[in-house]
C-alpha cells in the first residue's frame, strides 16, 4: 500500500522570523518575570524579617490584587505584593503571547485552519484567566 498524499502543497515550516520572535519572547518574558519575583521577594523578606512562613502559607496576600483596579492602585502605592503579582502574571502571559504570535504567523502563512485552531486555544486560555478563575474564587 502506498502512502496517500497528505496535501497537494504542504505549507512547509513557519518562517525563521516566527521562530526567532517566539524564542525572544520566551526569553524576555521569563527574564522580566524572574527579575520581578526575585527582587520583590527579597524586598519582602527585608521588609518583614519576622514574618512567619506558616501563616503566609495559610493566607495568600495576592488575593487583594487580583482585579485590575486594585493591582494598579497597589503598583502606584509601591506595594511589594502588587509587584510580585505582576511577576506571576508576566510568567503566565509568556506562553499565552507565544500562542498569539503563532496565530498571527499561521494567518500570514495562509494556513487558515491552523490559525483558527490557534485562536481557539487563545480564547480558551483567556476564558480560564478572565472568567473561570474569578468565578470559583
Amino acid at each position, binding site marked *: *500500500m502506498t*502512502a*496517500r498524499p*497528505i496535501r497537494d502543497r*504542504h505549507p512547509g*515550516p513557519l518562517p525563521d522570523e516566527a*521562530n526567532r520572535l*517566539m*524564542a525572544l519572547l*520566551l526569553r524576555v*518574558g*521569563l527574564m522580566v*518575570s*524572574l527579575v520581578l*519575583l526575585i527582587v520583590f*521577594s527579597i524586598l*519582602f*523578606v527585608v521588609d*518583614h*524579617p519576622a*514574618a*512567619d*512562613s*506558616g501563616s*503566609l*502559607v*495559610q493566607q*495568600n*496576600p*495576592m*488575593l487583594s490584587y*487580583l482585579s485590575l483596579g486594585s493591582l494598579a492602585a497597589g503598583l502606584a502605592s509601591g506595594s511589594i*505584593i502588587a509587584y*510580585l*503579582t505582576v*511577576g*506571576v502574571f508576566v*510568567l*503566565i502571559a509568556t*506562553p*499565552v503571547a*507565544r*500562542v498569539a504570535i*503563532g496565530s498571527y504567523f499561521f494567518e500570514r502563512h495562509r494556513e487558515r*485552519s*491552523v490559525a483558527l*485552531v*490557534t485562536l*481557539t*486555544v487563545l480564547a*480558551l*486560555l483567556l476564558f*480560564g*484567566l*478572565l472568567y*473561570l*478563575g*474569578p468565578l*470559583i*474564587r
Partner: protein
Amino acid sequence: MEIGVFLAVLFVVTILAGLVGSLAGLGGGVVVVPVLILLGFPFVDAVGVSMITILATSTTSGAAYVHDHLTDIRIGMLLEIATVPGAFVGAVAAIYVARIGWEDALVIALGIVLLISAVGTALRNDLDTSGEAHPDRLSRRLGLEGAYYDVRLQREVRYRAEDTTSAFGVMFSAGVVSALFGIGAGVFKVFALEGALRLPMKVATATSNFMIGVTAAAGASLLVMAGYVNPIFAAPAALGTTVGSYVGSRILPRLHNRSVRWFFVGVVFVLGIEVLLRGFGLA
C-alpha cells in the same frame, strides 16, 4: 519558621527538585509538589506554586527547542484544544475536592500518579516510528507533517501525524492530571505524541515541552485567579527549579544515561511511597 529561612530552604529544595526532575526526564513538578506537601503546604497551594515552576522551566527549555526546529507547533496547538479544557477540569476538581475536605484523597492519588510516572519512565522505550505513515483525515487536512535534521543520524528525518483522535483523548487526560496534581504530565503527552501520532522521539519530546507550558498557563491562570498561587513562595520555587533543570541539562550528557535515569526514577518512586503514607496518615 522565619520567612527568610523558609524561602532559602525552599530555594535549595527546588534546585534539587529541578535537578532530579530533569535527570529523570520527568520534569520538576513530580518532585516539587510532594516536597511542598511534606513542608506543610495545603495540597492546592502546593499545586499552584508547582504550576509556576513548570511555567518557568518549560519556558527556559522552550526557547532552546524553537531554535532546534524540533517543536511541531501545528501539532502542539491542535492538541492544546484538548489539554487546556483538561487543565480547567483538573484545577477545578482539585479546588472543590480540597474545599469539601477530601485533601487526603488527592494526596493518595498523587502518590499513585508518582508511582505510575516512575514505573512508566523506567519502562519507556523509544518507539520505532520509522516506516510508512497512515495519517488520518484531520492530519491530512491540517498538514500535520514535518521534518528535522537529526545530528546523530546525520540525515533529515520526515514524519506525518497519524491517529489524531486517540491523541485527543490521551491529551485531555494529560491536561486533567497536570492541573489536578501540579505536574507537567510529560509522560502522558509523549505517550500520545509517540504512540498515537507516531512522531519521532525528539519531536515528541520538544512538542510535549511546548504543550506543557501552554497547559501549565491554563492551570496556573485559573489557580491564580482563584487565589491558590502565593507569589512569595512562587519566586524561590521558580528560580530554584529553573537553576536545577539548567544544571541537570548541562551535566546529563556527561553521565551514563540509563543508570542515572534508574537512580532518579528510584527517588521519585520513594517520594511516591512517602506521599502515599502521608495520605493514609501513616507518616
